[in-house]
């Protein structure tokens, strides 16, 4: 043990050499890389019909392009600065531009029941925008699933083995003791904090988006420290899909109900609760939970898809 420690101090032995497996990347000098690029462009030139385009692109086009890019950026910056100079000054009392804000600040607590006015604003006054915003995240998740989830089309034939090896390597990452140790301590705290931020959205700064992001980060650290396998067992893809679906449709229908009653003058039967208590703000708490679930699973889904091309290992 002591012998090993001394050898490590002297730099003769790398204790992580057998734990972390890193891919050997052959070292290349800058000249070699440049030469390879030159070879590629020469190959492209040889293809019929591309000589002219490639020639233009290389010499005159590049020059014109850089000059035009700089000029248009400088112009845009100038125009925007000029515009900003004409805007009303920050913090100035202006009855026209502060009419809406004043109502939010003065009556927000009374009308929405939320101490945190921002939550009341995004989940009650302008809940329709937030409904769209949570679906933006969902759409992004779907797009990444389409792009990265491994299927017969984006797995290049002849490379199936490569993908298997890549996945296996990821499952093997759990040997890292530092990650495991830190993860053991940090992950519960992160989840607790995320839940706190999520559930206190109507009382203090926070809410669905921020709490969900914290919990998503917790999932990612969990997966990085302990590997995907335990998470796959707890959250297979079907379950993730179902929970996301349930959260989104709950949001749609709960808000649909509020919109419907509000527009038709039907009394809204959802109690507002005592301002300041955890169960207050009417629908804000359940909606925050729904948004938080969508955000957390979207973040975890991105991580999972980018690292191995599937959610829940299916």
């Amino acid at each position, binding site marked *: 043990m002591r012998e090993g420690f001394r050898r490590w101090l002297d730099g003769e032995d790398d204790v992580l050499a057998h734990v972390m497996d890193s891919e050997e990347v052959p070292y290349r000098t800058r000249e070699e890389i440049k030469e390879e690029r030159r070879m590629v462009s020469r190959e492209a030139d040889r293809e019929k019909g591309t000589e002219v385009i490639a020639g233009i692109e290389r010499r005159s086009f590049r020059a014109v392009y850089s000059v035009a890019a700089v000029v248009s950026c400088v112009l845009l910056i100038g125009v925007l600065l000029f515009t900003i100079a004409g805007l009303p000054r920050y913090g100035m009392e202006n009855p026209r531009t502060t009419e809406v804000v004043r109502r939010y600040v003065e009556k927000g607590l009374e009308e929405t029941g939320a101490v945190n006015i921002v939550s009341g604003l995004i989940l009650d006054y302008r809940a329709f925008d937030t409904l769209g915003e949570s679906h933006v995240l969902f759409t992004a998740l779907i797009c990444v699933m*389409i792009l990265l989830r491994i299927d017969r089309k984006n797995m290049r034939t002849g490379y199936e083995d490569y993908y298997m090896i890549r996945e296996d390597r990821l499952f093997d990452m759990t040997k890292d003791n530092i990650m495991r140790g830190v993860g053991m301590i940090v992950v519960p705290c992160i989840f607790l904090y995320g839940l706190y931020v999520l559930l206190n959205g109507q009382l203090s700064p926070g809410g669905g988006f921020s709490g969900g992001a914290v919990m998503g980060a917790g999932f990612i650290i969990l997966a990085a420290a302990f590997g995907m396998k335990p998470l796959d067992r707890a959250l297979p893809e079907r379950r993730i899909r179902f929970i996301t679906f349930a959260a989104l449709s709950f949001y749609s229908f709960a808000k649909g109900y509020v919109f419907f009653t509000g527009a038709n003058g039907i009394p809204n039967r959802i109690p507002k609760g005592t301002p300041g208590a955890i169960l207050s703000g009417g629908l804000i708490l359940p909606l925050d939970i729904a948004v938080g679930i969508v955000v957390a699973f979207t973040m975890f889904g991105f991580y999972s898809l980018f690292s191995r091309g599937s959610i829940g290992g299916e």
Partner: protein
Amino acid sequence: MSFITNFPLFTIILSLFSGALCMMLSGEAARRYTLTCECALIAMAACVLGYTLSTGQAFTYVMGEFPAPWGNEIRAGVLEAMTAVLFLIVMFCAVLAGRKYLPIDIDESKLNLYYTLINLMTAALMALIWTNDLFTGYVFLEILTLTSCGVLIVREIGRTTLAAVRYMIMNLLGSGLFLLGVVLLYDVSGHLLMVPMRASIASLASDPGNMTVLSMAVGILTIGLAIKSGLFPFHYWMPDTYGWATPTSGAVLSSLVSKAYIFLLVKTYFRAVGIDVVRRMPIGNILLVLGLCGIVFGSVSALRADHINRMVAFSSAAQIGYIYMGIGLGGTVGFTAAIFHIFAHAVTKSALFLTTPRLAAVSDDSLLFKNLQGSGLRDRNAGIFFTAAAFSMIGIPVFAGFASKLMFGTAAVSVGSPLKLILVMVVLAVSSLLNAMYFIRTVIRIFGPAPDTAPRYTGFRPTYNTAMVILTVANILLGLFSQVFADLIGRGLMMFA
């Protein structure tokens, strides 16, 4: 208040819910569900159209308990309802006619995700049409941006991925500029809802010192939407995006998505900024010039294209130029012409993108002109539908394209500026000639004599033919009753103010 006033809300909520639901279903079930859902949406939008026509006025719908300047709102008038009905019909036809290609182009495990995207896209289109709030417009514009990239990459070949990256960059640039414009307008006016914003801007604009900031804000917003809809010189993403997408996506992207941005622009001009204020800005003339350039350059590029989808896509760039030309001419006549052309182009271009893959399928899966010789004889249905749509693009009477060109001419005359009149007339003439050149050439090519003209598809294909017949009939109806539609659009524009 009639129960029908709830329908705009239902169309949005139902589509959003369908999006989430389709993720849970299998591909086949998702397809059936989506088509049924689209039918229900068409019925709802048609009810709204009937209701607004019978009451003769638009209605606003408060989203929640908080009225105008504080909470969200949506709004429905004749123009919104008409656009919604037409967009939903085109969407339905595109899904129905392109469905045979979806299992070929998309991996089986991702078919349901495709329908998820289609439903979310429908929700975003509906929200952009009904919205009465600029920021709601921005949120659903984001959904539209993401879904339009999604339906493009779903084919998972190198070409579409590359096209999607380029499309995404241009689109995000456009979204960013639009958001910047909205923020500037919010900063000076203090409102996001369209009607209070317009009142606030009207009082601001009475002081000429404020016009610079207002022009900048509206200008940035306009540029953002122009980039997203592909106005010259931002049209170079079009051929790859439309040309390589799976047919349903190509049809939907070219005929609905880019038009929804223009519709939002018109709505912003009329309802959020006020058309009188916009008229005092130099934006109209810039849009007119860019539109004219787009018409010429789009047509020239289309003439030089070597495969049919590329040609059709470049002709889209020219048609977008027409629409912006109408907006640039201004006045009720100009805007009516622009919106009529949105409708005409939506039914025509989707028909073209849905027929070209069939022509290619009987020509060794090649879209190159030289291989398409006689393809219209090998697949007569597709050939006939293509020809009808091509005639509409050229502007042959009876079809919608003729009516819209006539309207553009009338608009140019009514503007009362000789220079604009001459410019517009010359460009209309040149572009009609160019249109005729490349479309007639294509029609001759696909019906030309070829060594092999034996029909490949003899069986009756009900779903494809139904969808294409609906699109062609809609095209002819728009052409025959153009005056009726123009009157309706005029009434809708009056309701905007």
